[in-house]
């Protein structure tokens, strides 16, 4: 199956009358099969709104999302999601959390446990298989959620700030592993982030969003070779991409901040 993801003229408003907020306005883009695209923008610019929309979890909206050219209405089997909020099931231990999607599919227990164990190790949680989320740190819980989605091996991977609660080192290493799998499985990937370095490290293309209304401001093609090892991460080219993005984002971010101050004052 072709796993191209298309987003066309998506608009989403919250509320009505004077207090209405246009969270996302007329956003269109494609993610080709096997492509890694990041979406970056200041806090509150509508990234998560777009994420829920693409995942088929929002009912009323304008515009269209298509997988392989076919409009989707509701959650699609090819799409796997990692949510921004903490989403590990508190009543399941690590291994059963990670095996959740496989369990729903009716995969035999032995096979399921083996696959789950593999992904638990991949996110660096071996030894914690029998622990419950309440016994883990916030970053570890987030890794459980990442592993749960990866274990399902979706053709299209949507991630909403999956590495936000991780320290810089873990973030780099985990980003590396995720791209490894992504390259191997040729997953179509959309990553939402507000980390500039993370976006440049992982992506083929970066979409920059504006603040209120959330529109696409610019698309940056990242022409750095893969795998993006330490040499590349420390190269001047890498730095140049980060600086370029910062130039774009700075303006949007300060507008976001002003809006927040205005609202608070």
């Amino acid at each position, binding site marked *: 199956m072709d796993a191209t993801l298309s987003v066309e003229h998506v608009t989403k408003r919250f509320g009505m009358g004077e207090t209405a907020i246009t969270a996302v306005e007329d956003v269109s883009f494609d993610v080709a099969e096997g492509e890694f695209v990041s979406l970056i923008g200041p806090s509150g610019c509508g990234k998560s709104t777009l994420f829920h929309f693409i995942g088929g*979890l929002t009912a009323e909206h304008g515009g269209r999302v298509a997988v392989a050219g076919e409009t989707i209405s509701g*959650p699609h*089997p090819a799409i796997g*999601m990692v*949510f921004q909020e903490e*989403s590990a*099931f508190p009543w399941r231990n690590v291994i059963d959390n990670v095996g959740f*999607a496989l369990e*729903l599919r009716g995969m035999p227990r032995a096979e399921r446990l083996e696959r789950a164990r593999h992904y638990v190790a991949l996110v660096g949680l071996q030894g914690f298989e029998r622990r419950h989320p309440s016994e883990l740190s916030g970053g570890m819980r987030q890794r459980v959620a990442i592993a*749960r989605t990866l274990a399902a091996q979706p053709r299209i991977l949507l991630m909403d700030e999956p590495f936000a609660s991780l320290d810089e080192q873990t973030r780099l290493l985990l980003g590396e592993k995720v791209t490894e799998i992504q390259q191997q499985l040729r997953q179509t990937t959309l990553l939402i982030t507000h980390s500039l370095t993370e976006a440049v490290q992982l992506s083929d293309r970066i979409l920059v969003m504006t603040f209120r209304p959330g529109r696409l401001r610019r698309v940056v093609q990242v022409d750095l070779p893969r795998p993006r090892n330490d040499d590349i991460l420390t190269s001047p080219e890498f730095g140049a991409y980060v600086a370029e993005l910062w130039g774009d984002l700075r303006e949007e971010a300060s507008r976001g901040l002003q809006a927040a101050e205005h609202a608070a004052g």
Partner: protein
Amino acid sequence: MPRAEVRLLAPACGVLSLIAAAAALQALIVTDVVSRYVVPPPTDVVMAIARIVREEHVVARFLLTSGETFGSGLLILAVGVPIGFWLHRSALARRAFEAWVAAWAAAPLVLAYPLFLVLFGRSSLTIVVLGFAAGVAPVVLKTLEGLTATRRVLVDVGRSLQITRGQMFRKILIPAALPEIFTGLRLGLTFSLINIVGVEFLINFGGLGQLINELAERYDLAGTYAAIGFVLLASMVFFACMEHVERWLRRTH
């Protein structure tokens, strides 16, 4: 402090306070500050235990009352949890009925026992149904509360994985609401037990409640209090069992 000691400390404190209170009461009665014809001396109550076990079939009555409460508990779960789900799903039903359920929880249902007698006869069925009616409301309300408090993202994880409706219940909604459901059940069973013993007392039929009625009529105060002690025991057994079941359920989900 070693672990075992820590674990025993709390129950030991509880038992010692009870003994101390009983000793104080005993002292008040011995010194005639409190009349022994109003409150029987604690030692008499303890002694009466053996007597009511021997002469009044208290063990069988204990099992009967516990069994009736257990039956009510099953009915409460079988009816209360689905009603909670229904109120959660239907905004209209919730707005229409939530306040009624809360009012129902506060109603002194045991006073309606003649109605239950007419409907179900002078039988255990009446008692079980009354126990159910008295205890169902907290389970409905707590189930609803647990479902409402379930974080949106957990449901979204399921939806994003094309979960079926049945799986959504079994694997997400029920486990998420389970702690609240059990809180409701603990409250509900307490209401049930109180009302069951109350109606046994009122219609002079069945287990511990009837015994309490008889002993009180014979003015056997020590025996009456000893029988009340068995009601407390039933309540404690239920609490302990529920804690185990809840822990087991949480592990298997």
